[in-house]
């Protein structure tokens, strides 16, 4: 493709053409936009076939998960009713617990991670390189006995600080925050580096402190990555089963992953439908949150500081 057909060329490289151009039509529309829809639909089909099974199973009161390829042969909301009314499995409570724990954890992770990334990106100190590398490597350490170690730790902590010991949601959040530095820091670090230092220096000349620069300048400019990290950490908490099942033991205080898993770990064929219904509902907050965060992820930097 010749460089003169600018829009077609640039789009392929992942560019945003100037916004004052009109929407293309006809063959040019296909070349520029149409194929994007086709490709996306193809990937969406790949994404959604397994999920259709889950959806179909959630609507079928007696069906199995994958036993039949006749999807949606029976439609009933019985499983959803059962899910929401079962006193032994307080799904609504789990849902609320998970939202609270995941939200708190992701906010904490973003703050701790961003602070560390700021330090690594803006200051020069001894052990900077080594520190960054260690953070990355530490998270590769095998967690074979994590469940035993966390239990021992929280049992001991419970004696000193009952509020963050075994059985406490706050305790669980703190355990998750232990993982705030690591890959996330790295992701943010890379992004922080793309924010020009001249901005900091200009602010410093204006008399801003390093804390002001961090909170009011940098954090705004890196909103996309904050949103990404926040979402990643949110999803991480949403799907964590191992640690949550050790820390939270009271059914009223459990999280979705722990609670839902109980439906299928034994005698699963009996509870497929209810479990599938629970999984479908549990996926909604993640998707909604992403939908909400998208504008930060996609437009944060472009609309924040660059224009002007």
């Amino acid at each position, binding site marked *: 493709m010749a460089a003169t057909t600018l829009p077609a060329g640039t789009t392929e490289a992942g560019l945003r053409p100037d916004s004052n151009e009109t929407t293309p039509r006809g063959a040019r529309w296909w070349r520029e936009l149409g194929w994007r829809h086709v490709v996306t639909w193809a990937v969406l089909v790949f994404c959604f076939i397994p999920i259709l099974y889950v959806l179909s199973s959630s609507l079928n009161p007696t069906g199995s998960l994958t*036993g039949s390829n006749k999807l949606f042969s029976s439609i009933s909301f019985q499983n959803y009713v059962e899910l929401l009314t079962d006193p032994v499995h307080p799904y609504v409570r789990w849902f609320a617990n998970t939202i609270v724990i995941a939200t708190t954890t992701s906010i904490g992770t973003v703050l701790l991670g961003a602070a560390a990334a700021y330090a690594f990106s803006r200051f020069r100190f001894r052990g900077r390189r080594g520190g960054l590398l260690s953070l990355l490597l530490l998270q590769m350490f095998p967690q074979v006995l994590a469940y035993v170690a966390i*239990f021992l730790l929280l049992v001991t902590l419970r*004696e000193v600080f009952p509020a963050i010991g*075994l059985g406490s949601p706050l305790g669980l959040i703190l355990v998750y925050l232990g993982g705030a530095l690591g890959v996330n820091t790295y992701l943010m670090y890379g992004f922080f580096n793309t924010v020009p230092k001249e901005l900091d220096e200009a602010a410093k000349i204006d008399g801003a402190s390093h804390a002001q620069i961090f909170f009011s300048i940098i954090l705004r400019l890196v909103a996309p990555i904050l949103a990404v990290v926040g979402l990643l950490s949110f999803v991480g908490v949403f799907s964590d089963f191992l640690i949550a099942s050790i820390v939270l*033991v009271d*059914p009223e205080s459990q999280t979705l992953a722990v609670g839902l898993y*109980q439906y299928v770990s034994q*005698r699963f064929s009996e509870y497929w439908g209810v479990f599938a219904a629970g999984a479908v509902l549990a996926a909604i907050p993640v998707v909604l949150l992403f939908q909400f965060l998208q504008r930060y992820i996609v437009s944060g930097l472009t609309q924040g500081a660059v224009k002007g």
Partner: protein
Amino acid sequence: MRRSIPVVAATLGLALTLAACSGSSGETTDDASESSAANAGTLTVWVDDTRSGPVKEVATAFEEEKGVTVKLVQKDFGDIRDDFISQAPTGQGPDVIVGAHDWLGKLVQNGVVAPIELGDKAEDFLPVSTQAMSYEGTLYGLPYSVENIALVKNKDLVPDATPTTFDELVAQAKATGTQYSVLIQQDEKTGDPYHMYPLQTSFGAPVFGTDADGAYDAAQLAMDSDGGRAFAAYVAKLGAEGVLNTSLSGDVAKEAFINGQAPYMITGPWNVGDFVSAGINVGIEKVPSAGGQPSQPFVGVQGFFISAKSKNALLANEFVVNYLGTKDVQLAMYEAGGRAPALQSALDEIGDDAIVGGFAEVGKDGVPMPSIPAMDTVWADWGATEVALVNQQGDPAALWDQMTASISGKIAAS
């Protein structure tokens, strides 16, 4: 650093407040505590979700009667055994857990479970249930439910009586013209030796032999026998005939039976509820013998174990033996959980339930699934070999011998 003066002041103030609020520092009033160390008179019981309802009911009654507290902790059933093994030694584990009898080997070996004594009450339980809950002659758990698989029949498809041999059964089923004959669920990779076990035992080839006391003996791999090889040949034959198909997963088999595509299925009570609600007229029968000897399904017994590290041992025994072992409680647990009780008198009471009664009748011929630690080494080779047999991947006897040699090797190595 003069600027730190306000910090020091604030710190001291807050620290004193905190210390004052918390009272004496050793006492935790945390209600989420699952410690059994906290105070005598509080029993911590681990249950899974399906048991939590019924146990809660009886626990409430027990609390009122005895003036004690029973704290239920709801855990995933699959986690209870390993969490118990790792947490009991810290002294922070539960007093009582619900569990399956085949955990016993590991629980005893790790020294985390205490023996119990039923006294004269032992005779009131189904013999297979107390046998299963015993390890090396000592009883460790109070049985409360017994589960096993059986032949489930769609009576609308075959009104005739069920034949007495498996070959005749297959012939009768094929005569109905349905897509499948006798459904036995499999897994493409790991097979399903559990659902095949009634057929295997009908060739007189149990996994392990038993010692003088009737306990399973890891040193006697009874599958390594002519009966075992005959069973292998039979599995290959069923595979060739298309009766067995490794693609026939539990899901597929269940759907097929619900859709009336097969007159028979070998399965457990956990699926029958869905069969009934799908409108199928089910009957529960013995699995006909394939090799001439009686077919014996594995029996799984569930019950309650007391921690060897319980600081409330007396109370735990009172709760488990004298309370959970009574007919009323066993019946209440059945009503709430739907699992056939292990207490004979409770079972008699609900005997007119054709499904529970039917499975229980078949279970009388069953054998407890071995609970010795060596059993853990058996499954992988066993299942993979049955897959190979069904798929005609070699000489049946040779495959079987390769399997028994491999299993014996692993047992000997440890």
